[in-house]
């Protein structure tokens, strides 16, 4: 079974965000595999352990993304593909076109990705990709079993409801929390990763022109939210505090309770 995992490198969730010269500052920032994509990597490895085959991670991003791909290789992934190009000014439309141009020429049974990226949070690329490749998809899965007859039985989290679906492969799925607990890379894994195939490609290699992938949206401005100020710590017996709080909400904040 051939499994492709689409992956993005993001800020660590504990990072604060600062703006420098009109852009998000990357100074001193710790980067990680987007947590939802990490679930996808883990699930791909588990499916390979059960059914055999090969797991390949693929990313479109700046050169620093290589580090995230190497982490995936150290977790046990077989090959990595990084599509990097300095001239790319892209949005989700462009990224999905680039991934589709690459994957269209590959043979695969499964494509896995994250439910959304924790930085941009658009939640578009994976589902756009499934349409461009004309394969079915299920978003936000919490369980997957691949059957003998090339079907997948998956559970999907739909705002708290649980849907069970049967899907014909090849298909694309996006991972939701609860799917699994990703493994850590081991030392032997890290050593082995150094010898695994790592393909670095440009748009030219894919035969794509800038016109085909030109972004359909652009950023107009960027700003940080106003800082919240600490309010008041209530005093007195807890019973009094509870009563005071309800009155404050009604009187000072005009809440209708």
């Amino acid at each position, binding site marked *: 079974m051939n499994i492709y995992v689409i992956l993005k490198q993001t800020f660590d969730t504990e990072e*604060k*965000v600062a703006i420098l010269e009109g852009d*998000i500052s990357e100074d001193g920032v710790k980067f990680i595999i987007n947590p*939802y994509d990490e679930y996808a990597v883990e699930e791909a490895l588990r499916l390979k352990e059960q059914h055999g085959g090969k797991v390949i991670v693929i990313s479109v991003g700046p050169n620093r993304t290589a580090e995230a791909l190497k982490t995936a290789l150290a977790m046990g992934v077989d090959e990595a593909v990084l599509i990097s190009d300095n001239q790319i000014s892209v*949005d*989700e*439309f462009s990224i*999905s076109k680039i991934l589709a141009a690459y994957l269209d020429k590959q043979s695969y049974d499964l494509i896995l990705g994250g439910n959304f990226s*924790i930085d*941009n*949070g*658009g*939640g578009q690329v*994976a*589902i*756009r990709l*499934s*349409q461009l490749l004309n*394969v*079915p*998809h*299920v*978003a*936000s899965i*919490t369980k997957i079993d691949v059957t003998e007859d090339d079907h997948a039985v998956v559970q999907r*989290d*739909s*705002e*708290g*409801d*649980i*849907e*069970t679906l*049967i*899907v014909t492969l090849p298909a694309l799925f996006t991972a939701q*929390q*609860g799917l699994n607990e990703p493994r850590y890379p081991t030392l032997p894994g890290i050593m082995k990763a150094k010898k695994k195939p790592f393909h670095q490609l440009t748009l030219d290699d894919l035969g794509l022109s800038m016109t085909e992938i030109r*972004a*359909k*949206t*652009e950023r*107009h401005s*960027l*700003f*940080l*939210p106003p800082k*919240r100020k*600490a*309010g*008041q*710590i*209530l005093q007195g017996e*807890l019973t009094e*505090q*509870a*009563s005071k709080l*309800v009155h404050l909400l009604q009187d000072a*904040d005009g*809440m209708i*309770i």
Partner: protein
Amino acid sequence: MSKSYVIIAEVRDGKLRQVTLEALESVRIAKEDDDLISVIVLGHQISPIVEQLSQYVSGQIHVIDHVDLETYNSEIYFTVIKGLLDNLNPHAVFLGHSASGRDLAPMIAAYLNAGQISDVIAIEKANAEVIYTRPLYAGKAFEQKKFTDGPQVVTIRPNNITAANADTASSQAEIITIYYSPPPSLRSIVKDVIRKTSGKVDLTEAKIVVSGGRGVKNSDGFKPLQELAEVLNGAVGASRAACDAGYCDYALQIGQTGKVVTPEIYIACGISGAIQHVAGMSQSRIIIAINKDPEAPIFKIADYGIVGDLFIVVPLLTEEFKKALAYTNNP
């Protein structure tokens, strides 16, 4: 030439979702006077919803009512919508940033070769240009975006844009019933749905959220929080620590991983206030923190703080709110 705006309405538990009216208001802001609005609504036995929509829409309402559409299936829904879009030739398609909207929008965008701006929290028009505001890093930063090329797909985050008012005076909805024809073959079938949220207030649409962290200690520890949420007609949420510890379902998680909520009142119980959690709730109007530890970082962003054991404080609050509600309803 007038342009065509399409809104994909959303039905859940037999009701029209509030975010559809918020999407409608968004279109009213974005569109020019002579542009056309069409609403597409899919479901089963939805005539009351069509009736309700007709009070809001000056334009066409395309209705597809069939038992196959009772439960959301992306393939079936998308096939039906695609057929309609071919005729409507949309300049822009608006959806809610809900489970089904998040699923359908990128399919529609890919089909139309369109740009998409997701999870929009504000819309304004400046010099005939429409500017969309959306969060980055779950709200640690915000960006304003615009389209450089059409067509356009937009998803609206629930609870942020004022819902459209009924338009009864000028409303001239034209209701068009569409015959449902199933897709020739299906590659994905919904076999089973377990409704865990039926009748409950949706977390992202709740006006009041009562949220628990590591301090709730175990799954039973959520009970007092549920009671408080019920009294306030709110929803229960959780921090990553509580979800990772297995006290509750990941569906409840609020934060940079998980959901972002923007309720009127956010009550954080036994939550320390890690950066990753705060990203998911700091845009709430009023934040109340209850924590035993007076040094907990959550107090630095809370409007009101109570230092104390949540198992004592939360039931006390429930009683106080009950009293206040009894008075409001029967002064």
